[in-house]
């Protein structure tokens, strides 16, 4: 009587097949995490809307101009990029209520009550020959100033929690107190000098 053997699949080559697939995925995979600075472009205004735009008071604008040689001019004074962050911070906060610095107006913010909100606008202008590297460095410094201000404010208001650890609603409230107002003018040589405003909510 012959013993009936159950047919078995040879599993020895399974590891080889798995290795083959594994090496395929190893080679085709890309692990790069794309990171970047989100921004929102302003919509192109209609003819009628353009006239409605109220003029922003001179004291509320910080003029940042990067020329074609990648030199930075802040309110027509030359400045190093590293110093821009503190300049922007004092400009937005205006701790001594300097009449030459931006004015503040009370604003109702959900969850925080009425708070004095600065009307500061950072106007960023580049030349056509400005390098993208310099432009990003300046954007980064301005963003850094806003992030530090928001962090400080959040730590004071929300029991020592920095901005990044707040809930979505709390972050939105903080953004309401310090809205990112970067206004970008078209490059100088582009002809038209219309103001292009980009803000991130």
């Amino acid at each position, binding site marked *: 009587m012959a013993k009936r053997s159950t047919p078995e699949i040879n599993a020895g080559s399974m590891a080889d097949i798995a290795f083959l697939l594994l090496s395929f995925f190893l080679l085709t995979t890309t692990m790069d995490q*794309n990171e970047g*600075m989100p921004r929102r472009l*302003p*919509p192109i205004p209609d003819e009628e809307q353009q006239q409605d735009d109220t003029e922003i008071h001179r004291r509320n604008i910080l003029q940042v101009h990067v020329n074609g040689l990648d030199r930075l001019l802040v309110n027509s004074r030359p400045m190093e990029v590293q110093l821009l962050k503190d300049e922007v911070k004092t400009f937005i906060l205006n701790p001594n209520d300097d009449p030459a610095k931006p004015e503040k107006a009370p604003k109702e913010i959900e969850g925080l009550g009425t708070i004095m909100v600065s009307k500061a606008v950072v106007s960023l202008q580049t030349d056509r020959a400005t*390098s993208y590297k310099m432009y*990003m460095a300046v954007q980064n410094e301005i963003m850094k100033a806003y992030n530090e201000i928001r962090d400080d404010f959040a730590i004071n208001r929300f029991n020592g929690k920095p901005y990044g650890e707040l809930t979505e609603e709390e972050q939105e409230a903080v953004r309401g107190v310090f809205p990112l107002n970067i206004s970008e003018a*078209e490059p100088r040589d582009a002809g038209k000098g219309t103001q292009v405003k980009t803000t991130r909510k």
Partner: protein
Amino acid sequence: MKLNKKKKKMSGGFSTSSMSDIVFMLLFFFMVTTTMRDEEIMVQIKLPEASEIAKLERKDLTSYINMGQPLPALQSQFGTDTRLQLNDSYKTINDIRDFVAAKREQLSEADKQKLTIAFKIDEGTKMGVVTDVKQELRRCQALKINYLANKANRN
């Protein structure tokens, strides 16, 4: 004597049967995390460095605009001027409109307004071209943009 010899020769051979399990585990990991390279980049891009950056929220809503000099192998044919690459070929500013329309078409109705254009731009690019692209995007109502950058430490 014979028995002794045999015992000495026995080396600690380990079981290989669990190897396939380990390999499968790795395989699943890579299968899940993998994203296929969907486009071949034909321009040299060295992203600028920035510290205040965040991860892209939704990759499926993101389309990329690449800008930079053509690759060295292609420079004899295309020169060294900054080129704009959309999908797999060099394009001009005027093609952005069709590009945005095509990308919008791929998204569901609810996501159409959330289309994000990510800029993969070489740090040596001049702002003039970048602004031209931004102006064209404004005309196409594609207002959500993202400047991609490499992570730098906060100093």
